[in-house]
């Protein structure tokens, strides 16, 4: 474990070193690549409202976080239900699965504006869009996990005269959990992307997506703001995925460690 922490520290150092090296080697001006410490210092500058910048960014992150988490929660329930139906009913599976894969290719940017017009610019709309994006990985992973149970295990349950409900809760669900968590991890990252994309259409006031857009507009004056905002968005993504990982570690304590599907 401590070796891993050491490795992560080395990786962070490599990243920062790489950043500064790149700046030095390409001789980039501040408006292309500021020094890392300049971005760091910027966090403690005071903005027009008299707040420190890190607090201002933090507030926007909080908004996006709530959108993403709500979306992820809704997507988990809907995705689990849909995945289960696809796995257990042959016709639903065959009829719907191609669309679940196809729908992932729907450019979310294209329907986000329509949804915003439709449902308003409130955070709920953004949570819905975040949930839309998070739904597919969960549904696909659930369908695979619930469906991928060995015949022997099913025969065993049958030999106990177990009811379908028992088979579902004692065998299929626990057997599917590793798959579902792999899907959830992807979904957590997607939910942040969905929330940010949903914040982009005009009319949005809040969220880290808005912050990134405004920082982009003032980039030549204050490039650190864009770097700090993007950094914040990355941290948010990392936090969401880590959250899922922690839940996974707790829930899957006994499972054999095998995560990639």
């Amino acid at each position: 474990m401590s070796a891993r922490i050491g490795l992560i520290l080395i990786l962070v150092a490599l990243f920062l070193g790489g950043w500064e090296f790149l700046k030095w080697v390409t001789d980039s001006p501040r408006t292309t690549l500021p020094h890392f410490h300049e971005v760091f210092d910027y966090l403690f500058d005071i903005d027009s409202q008299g707040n420190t910048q890190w607090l201002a960014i933090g507030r926007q992150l909080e908004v996006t976080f709530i959108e993403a988490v709500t979306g992820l929660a809704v997507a988990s329930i809907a995705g689990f239900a849909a995945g289960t139906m696809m796995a257990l009913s042959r016709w639903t599976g065959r009829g719907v699965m191609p669309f679940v894969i196809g729908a992932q290719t729907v450019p979310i940017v294209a329907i986000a504006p329509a949804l915003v017009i439709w449902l308003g610019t409130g955070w709920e709309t953004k949570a819905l869009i975040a949930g839309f994006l998070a739904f597919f990985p969960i549904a696909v992973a659930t369908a695979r996990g619930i469906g991928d149970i060995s015949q022997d295990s099913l025969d065993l349950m049958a030999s106990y005269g177990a009811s379908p409900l028992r088979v579902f809760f004692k065998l299929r669900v626990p057997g599917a959990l590793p798959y579902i968590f792999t899907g959830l991890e992807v979904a957590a990252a997607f939910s942040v992307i969905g929330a940010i994309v949903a914040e982009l259409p005009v009319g949005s006031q809040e969220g880290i997506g808005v912050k990134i857009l405004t920082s982009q507009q003032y980039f030549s004056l204050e490039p650190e703001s864009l770097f700090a905002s993007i950094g914040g968005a990355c941290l948010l993504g990392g936090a969401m995925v880590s959250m899922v990982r922690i839940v996974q570690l707790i829930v899957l304590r006994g499972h054999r460690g095998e995560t990639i599907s």
Partner: protein
Amino acid sequence: MTTGADTSGAGPAEHRDWGRYAGIIVPPALVFVAALALWEAAVEVFEIQRFLLPRPSEIVALFFEDFGRLIKQGRNTLGVAGRGLLLGGAIGIGLAALSFRTRWMAEGLGIYAAVLKAVPVISLAPLTVVWFGIEAGSKIATVSIATAPILFTFTLVGLRRADPNAQELMRSYAAGRLRTFWSLHVPYALPFFFSGLKISVTIAMIVAIISEYFGGSFENLGGYIRNEANNVHTVEVWTAIVMACALGIGLYMIVAIIDRFVLRWHSSKRGG
């Protein structure tokens, strides 16, 4: 729900030939037609305004009318997605091939890949614009940032999967590193690589469109969507969505077919 008891070893002979293909094609086709009919009816019954949700019939009509332009825009988007995927693949697969023998290197790169997968890639789009310009360059960069970690992880897992017995066998033949790599590790990695590629193609398409949406030329699907959405031309937006989906599904299917063809020998592909 299937019952636990229903395990009457379904005969392999029941679904054969055209019957089998019909089983794959008919249910989704039915669902598709039903969904379109429901959509059309909903617009009619609830009198949904055209700019909110147009009728499918209207979208289809305009889609064919604008087909020439949509194809041209689609080709540009496809070019960005494809080149980004190539670059991301080269980086991801290259790093996996370089690092899979060295534990600490694979683990370190693995952490970077995990972080990149958690990062909302589109938030990087404004930065890539600064570095690589507003046109294709920045978009290709964003696509490759999104796809490289996926292909890296899948390829790495596959390369490391090689049967230890087979590795010893290769050693006993005194096979060189390169020989072992091509005849042992690569075949083991291929199924994983293709799983990663299937995920990557859809993601490449989405990321390409989103980064086009961020700015630059209008002569691609993302730019077109941005322009038409700003003017509340909803039907036009939907035709672009249809084109994007068609291209995305097409790409996915091409990869799936190559996958089937290349991995005929592989056990997971036998017997349906």
